[in-house]
């Protein structure tokens, strides 16, 4: 790098750039927060959905599955599983695990009650209604 471009100039670009773009990021975040309610339909976050998210987290479903494309890549996407499979299939599926099919990837048995399964399904239903800019490309996730 040329000698006329000094270290203190470089330092100023760092400080100026960091502060400017951090503030811009905060500004964009603020703007996003204004728009989100229309896209996440938070009016539909019922107590069931809240409890369902808690069950989702405390069973670490994200350690095998993706949810809206984030998580682990070992098992099917579940952001749209409500639309792909419907509530009854989901509940029956979770109750029936593990499949025990030799050599096939396994999902544990979580011993969830019917009420807990309903909560989980409510959470997955609400999630499937988030406006995700049309992701995933098709129903298979």
């Amino acid at each position: 790098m040329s000698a006329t471009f000094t270290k203190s100039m470089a330092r100023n670009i760092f400080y100026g750039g960091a502060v400017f773009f951090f503030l811009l990021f905060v500004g964009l975040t603020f703007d996003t927060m204004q728009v989100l309610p229309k896209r996440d339909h938070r009016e539909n976050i019922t107590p069931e959905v809240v409890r369902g998210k808690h069950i989702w987290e405390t069973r670490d479903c994200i350690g095998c599955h993706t949810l809206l494309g984030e998580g682990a890549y070992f098992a099917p996407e579940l952001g749209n599983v409500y639309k792909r499979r419907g509530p009854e299939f989901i509940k029956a599926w979770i109750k029936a695990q593990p499949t025990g099919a030799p050599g096939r990837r396994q999902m544990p048995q979580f011993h969830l009650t019917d009420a807990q399964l309903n909560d989980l399904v409510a959470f997955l239903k609400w999630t499937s209604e988030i406006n995700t800019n049309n992701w995933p490309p098709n129903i298979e996730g």
Partner: protein
Amino acid sequence: MQYKSQAVAKPYFIAAIGLFTGQILFGLIMGLQYVVGDFLFPEIPFNVARMVHTNLLIVWLLFGFMGSAYYLVPEESETELFSPKLAQVLFWIFLLAGAATVLGYLLVPYATLARMTGNNILATMGREFLEQPLPTKVGIVIVALAFLFNITMTVLKGRKTSITLVLLIGLWGLAVFFLFSFYNPSNLVLDKYFWWWVVHLWVEGVWELILGALLAFVLIKVTGVDREVIEKWLYVIIAMSLITGLIGTGHHYYWIGTPESWLWFGSVFSALEPIPFFMMTVFAFNMVNRRRREHPNKAATLWALGTGVMSFLGAGVWGFLHTLAPVNYYTHGTQITAAHGHMAFYGAYVMVVITMISYAMPVLRGRAANSERAQVLEMWSFWIMTVSIVFITLFLTAAGILQVWLQRISATPMGFMATQDQISLFYWLREISGVFFLVGLVLYIASFFIKGGKTVSA
């Protein structure tokens, strides 16, 4: 060793390498579960192995960063560490907390662990990379703050260099952004939005400052190039990191419910994120070419150059590959992501920590560099691990392309599990590459025990 208190770095480095080995073993377990689905089921379900794999990665990198700081800061500040005692105590607290957490994952069902550790009071668990129980998260914050206090006080009482300043900003940023791990709203979209303030703003933000500072330090040492030149580069690189990387967070805001404007912000800014990584490569080679002396530690120089190249490939090239929204629409959450995650983490953060260890450990053991034989073995381990990770990345990329094709692009899309069956060959190849990686790691550890040959005294 110029300052006695630098010696506290040694246990940190040893622990880092030990936990690294654990990480790789669990990686291999998961790699096998990908193709033999019921392997170790139900004893170690995939998600448990994954938590152990990724949390060990983060914890050992933190050990590596802390050890590096304890080594670097006294030397740069030209003064003894503020409190070596505190550093020693924190080491044991962090190690025991880490071990207890991993044992918790392995021995207790996750839901029980959550209940036992107060997750009902403040729910923070069950999110990727942030699976730690509440006490562990609080422990991380306490250890980080005490550590930051220690090195900040050291810097304040000694010489202030650009390198220590950048390192401090990076480490403080690491601690500050981790606080977002305590924010877990029941609205999933908000949860995800701020989850990235930990994950993305770490690896594509403040950690890059740490990376740059450590690399700059080692380059000054092994090349003898003028500090003014190196520090100028450092500032330009990290300026570019934050200018591109902050708004670049938007590449995670395409499909999680956030507004469409992020498709543009994310694509444009994250497309520029490879620039600082490219500069890092040019920087490393430039400085080594302009070296004013021949440092006897050839291995450390090799790791430093490797960091430049591999971080550019993993973060820059493999990041760019899937960062534009129209591409990410198809690749989001597939093996392409895993391919990139592996090479980027290895190339940037694993390699920079090993660079520091490679440079500092001989000095901590009373010599400028290891014997010729030990260095040759270390350089073999460099090549084996690095080539293995390249192959892991290539096989996962192949798997990912097929996955996207079969499951997302094809006119008759296949289901997830059927697609996985189709691409199992690549998972086998990834697993074989992983075994080679483990061999490289074992050789790396063995290089610490090679005696004989001529050593260069410090």
